């Protein structure tokens, strides 16, 4: 009888261990997510960007964010990186003499950093209280401070280090770009895109942004071409600007990274140089999610284990109390 009981435990225990070891197989990965039906995003083209930072001003104005400055008279905004006061930033890459635009050696380039609005966001999966949510229609990843408990797991999970925390506050919030969700509702476009004078930041439906990005990659460097300004969303005024085509790196950053993002980038300098990490096409969330799912699917394994434990403990109690066995 004793042996039998132990075997039962071993069997149920090993089931759980096998589930835990599941990642070794492809089965433990859950399926890739699809783009939201009315997904909107931003195409940032580093070769069109002149580094004027109008988008940063537009962002701060649209979101009523405080200035970040080391100037004692608080005359200008001068953030070093994304922070609890800065949702959008233009950063500069420079190498060697730093003279030629969009050139890896002896050149410089600009890059816009903000929330990427992933198709399968790690932060949304990580958040225990659904404070971070992905809109089912627009795909915008938004934040709800009334749900947030401030655990900061979203910061650990985000592969782009985007969510920021108000460390100095006694009622801290997570801060990140929400694609000016409050403006989209009124048919307006994000503050950064309406401020951009060159078309470097372009708002629109993600699928059309990808078509536009692919068109630019086909253009011949040095020739002149028309580039849309501000937005390519349906119903918006079609404004364009004729500009010289830059030399692109043959890659649309965000098309496939971690399952795809709704903010896409084109550049003349390799993306890792601009601080955008090289990422696999499959998001890290898929593996973690897959393992959790394998173990906790319908709570079957935990319930079987609980049943086995109750059985064993009851048996043990009877054994010692009544000496039945």
């Amino acid at each position, binding site marked *: 009888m004793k042996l039998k009981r132990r075997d039962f435990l071993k069997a149920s225990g090993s089931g759980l261990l096998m589930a835990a070891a599941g990642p070794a197989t492809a089965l*433990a990965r859950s399926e890739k997510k699809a783009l939201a039906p009315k997904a909107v995003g931003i195409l940032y083209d580093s070769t069109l960007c002149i580094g004027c930072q109008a988008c940063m001003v537009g962002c701060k104005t649209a979101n009523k964010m405080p200035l970040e400055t080391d100037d004692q008279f608080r005359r200008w905004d001068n953030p070093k990186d994304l922070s609890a006061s800065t949702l959008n930033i233009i950063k500069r890459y420079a190498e060697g003499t730093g003279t030629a635009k969009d050139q890896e050696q002896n050149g410089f380039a600009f890059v816009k950093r903000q929330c990427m609005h992933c198709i399968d966001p790690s932060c949304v999966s990580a958040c*225990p209280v659904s404070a971070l949510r992905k809109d089912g229609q627009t795909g915008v990843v938004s934040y709800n401070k009334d*749900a947030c408990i401030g*655990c*900061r797991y979203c910061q*650990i999970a985000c592969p782009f280090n985007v969510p920021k925390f108000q460390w*100095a506050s006694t009622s*801290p919030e997570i801060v990140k770009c929400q694609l000016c969700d409050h403006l989209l509702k009124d048919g307006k476009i994000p503050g950064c895109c309406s401020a951009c004078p060159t078309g470097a930041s372009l708002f629109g439906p993600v699928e059309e942004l990808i078509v536009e990005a692919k068109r630019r990659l086909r253009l011949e460097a040095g020739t002149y071409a028309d580039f849309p300004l501000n937005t390519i969303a349906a119903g918006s005024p079609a404004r364009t600007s004729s500009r010289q085509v830059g030399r692109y790196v043959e890659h649309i950053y965000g098309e496939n990274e971690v399952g795809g993002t709704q903010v896409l980038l084109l550049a003349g300098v390799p993306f890792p140089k601009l601080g955008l990490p090289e990422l696999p096409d499959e998001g890290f969330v898929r593996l973690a999610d897959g393992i959790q799912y394998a173990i*906790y699917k319908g709570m079957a394994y*935990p319930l079987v284990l609980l049943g086995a434990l109750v059985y064993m403990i009851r048996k043990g109690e009877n054994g010692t109390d009544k000496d039945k066995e």
Partner: protein
Amino acid sequence: METPKPLGGRILTGPFLFFLTLFLIGGYFTVKRFMLGIGAVSNMNDGYPWGIWIALDVVVGTALACGGYTMALMTYACNRMEYHPLVRPALLTSLFGYTLAGASVMVDIGRYWQAYNIILPWHSNLHSVMFEVALCIGAYCLVLWIEFAPTVLEKVKADQLLTKLNRYLFVIIALGILLPTMHQSSLGTMMLMAGYKLSPLWRTGFLPLLFLLTALIIGFAVVIYESLYSSVAFGLPKETPVLTKLGTVTFWCLLLFMVIRIEDVNLRGYLPLAFDGSFVSNMFLLENALLASALLLLMYPGNRKSPKLLFLAATCLLFGGGLYRFNTYITGFEPGTGWQYFPSAPELFITLGIVSLEILGYMWCVKKLPVLSARQTPHVSNS
């Protein structure tokens, strides 16, 4: 079977006052944290959003509090009644360890007044590993208090309540084994989400299994450690024969852990990374050297009979296993873009304060409540 009884004696001893002082300093900084915000006391930043409050107090702390889990597993699920005298002291450390890990979380999270959102169904995110861990740890704290309740009920002689509780205690005990199995493995799954930010020396799909195994190993080690330490500190007879058996179980768990741990890094081709001389790699080597030392010590059955060597092995396991978990959460985590983290003094004092409270509580409880089994003292009826 030996009956546990209160040790009695003076409460305000030297060590008690020492830990009380540490607790008060920690308390001062905790008040400061709530008055001025986390940034005022901690060095945590947007690159390292989790510091020692999570890595030490929760991730290592709850592993050190797994004595109650492992002893319940051995005694009740495997029906080995020889471990029974170890259950109560182990439960007591688990009770304090988990409850204070929970308290630590409340210090750590930014919007603690909304913590109850986790249990509101319209907020719950069933996909979140954090959700499962938080819920499991919360539930397990409750389970531990109920599991420990008989000790208090015996003391206050609430016989009726005790009989009633004992009738249903098997469900609680079963939950007391299930819940740690769930959340201790999930503490591993949690860091999978960090992706490339976690060094490949730690990042693997086996994280949940490795975390479950370290929970068991550290749980066993802490019981050996605590039993031998209490016997010296409180002048009780050593429980060596049962600790020898425990040493054997620990050895097999540790062997399994080490094989998976090293082979996993090796098969993924990252073993050379361990020898590149960087700080992170050296921490990997240190962690495994400590665990390997314990493995060597416990490998010889003769060693498992010696209280001294058992104590040494347990110490290596506590530090090695603790370091494995700490490294997974802090050392191996590199968000890039130049972020640095080293805990500030106030941050450390808050952790020390919490640990001190744990020790103070344990000291008080073993003296006032029937926790430890003193075999040489004449049998005193407690019922």
